[in-house]
């Protein structure tokens, strides 16, 4: 078996090799059933969403021409935000997964679609479809885990810079589309290298991103405000675009955080990707490495059906409008094999993800050993860990680990006493 857990209870210890093979077969059958029944209704669905988004964008931008009047500003900004979210989530993300390639419509095809996002479709398809979806939740392989800027697992070594990761995460949320572009370029890693050591085509990719940024900035902050000059609404239009972009960034960041970050989502180690990872093993990794958001139909559409993250990770190329029906079957399979189907409403899920970000910004064992009484002492210890050198950190971490071990032993003992 490939999945090693650092938890007390391995969530798949009860599954035999045959069970996992059987899960793989059953999921393949679900996939095939949906693939065979794709048709007119599904095609009509995506065309309807695309048309709705385009009408909504036009209408909102039209209303924003008069955004000097506060009600028009509010209406236009809300409309534009919703339109941008639809464009990114239910349309862009899913089209770029090839979910609608089967229609053979060259205009709604993964190979031709360009989205309203500063990261070019081509770059994103590589980092997301190929890297993230193949190596889901493998620490060190799947950079979506923390986007290379955050610590998302106890197994990742703690460094002082992680102390600011909640702030980092918030800033990333505000500028999410730029964060994604930087992430797709592996900007941090590549800029550190001397120019001649950077991967082939890096400069080219940077140029493409810059071009997109320029075009989008021109559209949102020059052209449309320019059109609003006539009614004296230029500044208001500019502000509306800024807010809409920000809302879209915050929303997509939140939805995406809910997919793999909440407490209870499993992460895996590189070694697990041994050469014999079977189809069933791969499916199990997707099942346990993703989390769903429960909610209304509107919620599912606004999240691009990434609220059905588990189903999406099992079948990333099936049309998004079918995930709701797939969910019923997948959930039954989780129950049949006694696996944890991680699904919560949006707010608890977002809270859970943020909680994890905060918790892991601190060294392992820190929160566990901190009480109101020892808080000043603990803060002193933390300061030393943040400012101290490698040796100090190691020593203090050992101290924390020992404290946690003692606490656990004590709890175990009292459990035994109570039981007796």
């Amino acid at each position, binding site marked *: 078996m490939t999945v090693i857990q650092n938890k007390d209870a391995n969530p798949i210890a009860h599954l035999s090799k045959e069970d996992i093979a059987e899960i793989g077969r059953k999921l393949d059958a679900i996939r095939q059933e949906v693939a065979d029944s794709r048709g007119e209704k599904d095609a009509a669905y995506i065309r309807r969403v695309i048309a709705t988004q385009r009408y909504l964008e036009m209408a909102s931008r039209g209303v924003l021409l008069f955004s000097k009047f506060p009600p028009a500003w509010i209406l236009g900004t809300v409309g534009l935000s919703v339109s941008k979210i639809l464009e990114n989530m239910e349309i862009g993300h899913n089209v770029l997964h090839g979910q609608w390639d089967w*229609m053979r419509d060259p205009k709604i095809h993964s190979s031709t679609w360009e989205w309203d996002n500063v990261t070019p479709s081509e770059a994103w*398809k590589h980092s997301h479809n*190929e890297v993230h979806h193949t190596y889901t939740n493998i620490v060190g392989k799947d950079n979506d885990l923390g986007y290379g800027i955050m610590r998302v697992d106890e197994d990742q070594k703690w460094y002082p810079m992680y102390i600011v990761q909640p702030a980092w995460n918030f800033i990333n949320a505000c500028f999410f589309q730029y964060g994604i572009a930087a992430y797709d370029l592996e900007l941090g890693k590549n800029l550190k290298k001397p120019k001649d050591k950077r991967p082939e085509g890096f400069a080219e990719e940077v140029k493409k991103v810059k071009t997109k940024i320029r075009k989008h900035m021109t559209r949102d902050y020059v052209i449309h405000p320019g059109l609003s000059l006539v009614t004296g609404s230029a500044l208001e239009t500019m502000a509306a675009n800024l807010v809409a972009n920000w809302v879209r960034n915050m929303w997509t960041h939140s939805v995406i955080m809910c997919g793999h970050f909440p407490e209870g989502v499993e992460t895996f180690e590189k070694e697990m990707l041994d050469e014999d990872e079977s189809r069933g093993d791969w499916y199990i990794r997707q099942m346990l490495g993703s989390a769903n958001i429960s909610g209304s139909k509107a919620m599912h559409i606004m999240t691009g059906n990434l609220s059905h993250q588990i189903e999406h990770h099992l079948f990333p190329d099936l049309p998004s409008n079918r995930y709701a029906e797939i969910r019923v079957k997948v959930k039954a399979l989780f129950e049949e094999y006694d696996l944890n189907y991680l699904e919560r409403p949006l707010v608890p899920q977002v809270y859970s993800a943020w909680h994890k970000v905060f918790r892991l910004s601190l060294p392992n064992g820190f929160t566990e050993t901190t009480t109101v009484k020892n808080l000043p002492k603990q803060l002193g210890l933390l300061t030393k860990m943040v400012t101290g050198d490698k040796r100090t950190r190691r020593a203090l971490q050992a101290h924390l680990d020992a404290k946690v071990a003692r606490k656990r032993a004590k709890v175990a003992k009292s459990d035994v006493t109570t039981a007796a």
Partner: protein
Amino acid sequence: MTATASEPIAPAPAAADVDPRANSGRKPRLRDRAVKLVEAATTPLMPADYMDLFAPLRPGAELRGRIISVTPETADAATIVIRPGADWAGHVPGQYVRVGIDVEGVRLWRAYSLTHGPRGDKNISITVKAVPDGVVSHHLVHRCPVGSLVHLEPAAGEFVMPDVNGGKYLMVTAGSGVTPVIGMLRNLFPVADSGVVSLDRSKNFDITVIHVAPSEPDSIFLRDLQALDAAGKIRLIARYDDTHGFLDVNDIPSMVPDVAERITLACGPGGLLDALGEHHARHGLPLIVEQFRTSRVEAGEGGTVVFEKSDVTLEIDGATTLLDAAEEAGMLMRSGCRMGLCMGCLVPLEEGTVRDLRNGDLTTAVPGESGAVKIQTCISSPAGPCRISK
């Protein structure tokens, strides 16, 4: 070059000096700027993406058409009248049009003869016979929604009257091969409520039609041919397999004694056209042919795959993916997850059939019909000979 030394040769302007809009005055330049401005407002989409919502048939749009009516001809054939987009450039009777239509959500392309000459109402028509297993033809004949949009390509084809002023012709048609011929005949001899109309421009035509069909009731357009025959506009020789037996091309001189004076136009199945070609070549007779359908590809196991752009041909067995085989042969292939998930390895299949190794699904590309179909090389294996644009 034949310029003599005495002739001054004007120096060719350097490429950088040439402004393609230099001669077109100020207006186009203004328009170009306006277009650029609108594009800047709609990025990453094009202005056309928005205009398509309101006016899909406008000038400048991709070529589309709206289905105006569907009229049954026989139990399994119907004439479909389409209003083409503003940029439809017209056609010559006998030509065909490629129609892209969404069946069960999947866009499929087929070529159909235009069955009317250019019409007064600017509409075009095709007549479709529902063939066995024909996904598109069944859709068009039996459940095609009036008012829906179809995609079009400009009319094409060389199967047209060689001389618009007249001449002696023999037209040989079999099955749905009658459709382009009907297009030509209707153009020459329109039918009104009062019967066949005689036009001045048609009086120099002398046309004999040999029309072959499996049996009389199956014969679409028979009424039209019979009416033209009755009106003395053409000479019709109807041949039904069930009563006359299969047509032997060697019998044609006895059926049409002056065949040698006529230009033969033939449209029908490959077998008939081949026999006719051989016969006419033997006797040195002029022949113009049109064949609709390439013979159906039977899906097999493995096959010869031609990678066109790389100029590589590989024999690939039915268990090896295109990606693996191509890489094995030293080709640089784009690929990603190798599991069929990421669509990183899509390439256009120009012709042939491939099998999805995960579930056995077949995908077929027929040139002139489906157009190229994008396939994933990482999960596809050839099911017969294939041509790939890569």
